[in-house]
């Protein structure tokens, strides 16, 4: 399997740009393993990303078509490509700032439309590439370069946001548990409709060292111990859940897909009039 994964990576792109201890490398491996296990043809896949560290996971590493777009707009670009060519398997991979802050509008509307695509959000709770500024996902009290006294803004729960907006598959996993992560990514990519996977990925460089995690390993360990499966969380009280992050599958339903191609045969709009009649 490892040799197969290696062949899916553009050798010219090495070394990867990720810092030591960054979780994005684990996520990159997990995505490629999921694709390999699903036996998808990379040539029929399109990977779209925005701006930020996570956006560099597919571009330029994946040996497939990649579209590295503007900050926040990945889902909108992906929508155009998918609508015009519904045969493309479209996967958006980007960060929490890109997808939920500057790109929040596109995220909720693509979810509302149940646009047939997979969105993988690498959430490191911080703006890493630009130097560790507060994100819309930064936990309360955390130190960042723009919250020197601790973050006072409550963070988004991205999975609840995606669910409320209408996503038909929603799940969350940390990179600390790659096996369930790969299993989830496979389900998300095989899902018909808008699938959203939030992947918790540590950023020791910009988040960890300012917030009492002395080593990347300490950060991974803390991430692992703070996660609680959705099944276990069911029987616990609000107090017991304090400080815990619930992981697992939250939504997996079927719903009407956004019409991926409007033409005379399958359109849901009546076109009795031809142009000459106008």
């Amino acid at each position, binding site marked *: 399997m490892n040799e197969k994964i290696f062949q899916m990576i*553009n050798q*010219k*792109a090495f070394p990867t740009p990720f810092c030591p201890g960054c979780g994005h490398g684990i996520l990159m491996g997990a995505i490629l393993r999921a694709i390999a296990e699903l036996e998808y043809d990379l*040539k*029929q896949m*399109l990977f*779209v990303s925005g701006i930020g560290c996570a956006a560099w996971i597919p*571009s*330029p590493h994946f*040996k*497939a*078509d*990649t*579209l*590295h*777009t*503007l900050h926040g*707009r990945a889902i*909108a*670009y*992906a*929508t*155009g*490509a*998918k*609508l*015009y*060519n519904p*045969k*493309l398997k479209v996967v958006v991979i980007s960060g929490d700032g890109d997808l939920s802050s500057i790109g929040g*509008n*596109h995220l909720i*509307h693509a979810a509302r439309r149940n646009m047939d695509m997979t969105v993988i959000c690498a959430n490191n709770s911080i703006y890493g590439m630009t130097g560790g500024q507060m994100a819309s996902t930064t936990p309360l009290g955390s130190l960042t370069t723009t919250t020197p006294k601790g973050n006072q803004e409550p963070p988004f729960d991205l999975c609840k946001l995606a669910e409320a907006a209408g996503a038909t598959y929603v799940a969350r996993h940390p990179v600390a548990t790659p096996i369930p992560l790969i299993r989830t990514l496979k389900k998300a990519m095989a899902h018909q409709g808008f699938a959203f996977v939030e992947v918790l990925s540590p950023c020791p460089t910009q988040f960890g060292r300012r917030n009492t995690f002395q080593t990347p390993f300490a950060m991974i360990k803390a991430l692992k111990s703070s996660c609680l499966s959705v099944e276990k969380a069911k029987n616990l009280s609000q107090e017991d859940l304090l400080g815990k992050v619930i992981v697992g599958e939250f939504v997996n339903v079927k719903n009407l897909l956004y019409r991926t*191609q*409007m*033409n*005379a045969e399958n*359109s849901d*709009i009546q*076109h009795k*009039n*031809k*142009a*000459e009649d*106008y």
Partner: protein
Amino acid sequence: MQLKKVKSSLKPGWYFMQGDEACAEGAIAVGCRYYAGYPITPASEIMIRMVHRLPEVGGAFIQMEDEIASISSVIGASWAGAKALTATSGPGISLMIEAIGYATITETPCVIVDVQRAGPSTGQATRPAQGDIMQVKWGPHGDNEIIALSPWSVQEMYDLTIKAFNLAERFRVPTFILADEAVGHLRETLVVKEELEVYDRYKAPGLPPFGTEEPNGVPPMPSFGEGANLLVTGSTHDSWGFRKTADSAVQARLTERLVRKVKDFKSEVVATENHFLDDAVVGVVAYGFTARAAFRAVKTLRSQGIKAGLLRLISIWPFAEEAIAELGKQCGVIFVPEMNRGQVAGELRKYTSTPVIPLPKTNGEVIEPDEIVDGIRRNLA
């Protein structure tokens, strides 16, 4: 430009049509098969025509959540192989500016219709203006050698939309139709011919999609799903799309080519029309709806014994430098009526030392022929 003839999608003949609708029909005729837009006065009629027409020809339509999403999805569709269109007005262009810069650096063909309205900001949404001349050219940061055409009639809303798609594909550059509320909402005769000329995207598998040997070339453009392993990025990139974010030689070469690939071949783009210029000593330069009033004004001035002539700009960007220089040599003075505070008039001064007198009007109303006549007579007196 290698053009092929195709049959018209509309039955040949005479139509009574609105400018915005003629624009949509021109897009369908030339092979546009993707539209994404967001409602805005006075451009919404284009979107409404497209939602009916695209399904008839197997195309895709979507109303996006905002203008940023509209242009973004148009760029995505273009890379998936579509001839793609969006239409908006000044405020929408303002939102699209960042993505227009992205289309420039990624060399993505797309057509953006700007039905201009009175600004700044929300201004007067239902009133005409020509205030976006500089916005479409200099809005994005860095240098953008975009193409912009300015129709003066319903016929040109149709014809120039066809031309805009051909130029966008030929040069791999975002191309604008700089219309205005008056020509967009105007209803008059449209003549549809049996055939039209279409430029199809140049594909050459195996060749780099983001660079050429020549410093002014247009590389071939593969689509997603064709196995080209496309690396499309808005960062500075080499000819295969690899990011080169700190290589000054690559940055210099790319930025030079993005400008020269259009500028060096601008004779394929620049279009002007002469009216009564043969013996003219008083020059008038006008474009878009204003050129209709200028045409009438020049005729009136001639009947009053003033040898006036009109140079109509059909293309705005790249600018008609040679035609302006020629006009400057011939005429002792040049008047520029326009529905802004002198955006094109200022541009003229770069290419002629002949006095250029702006005749601006920004009250949200079209310029009347008599106002041009009076303005010219007052200045000549």
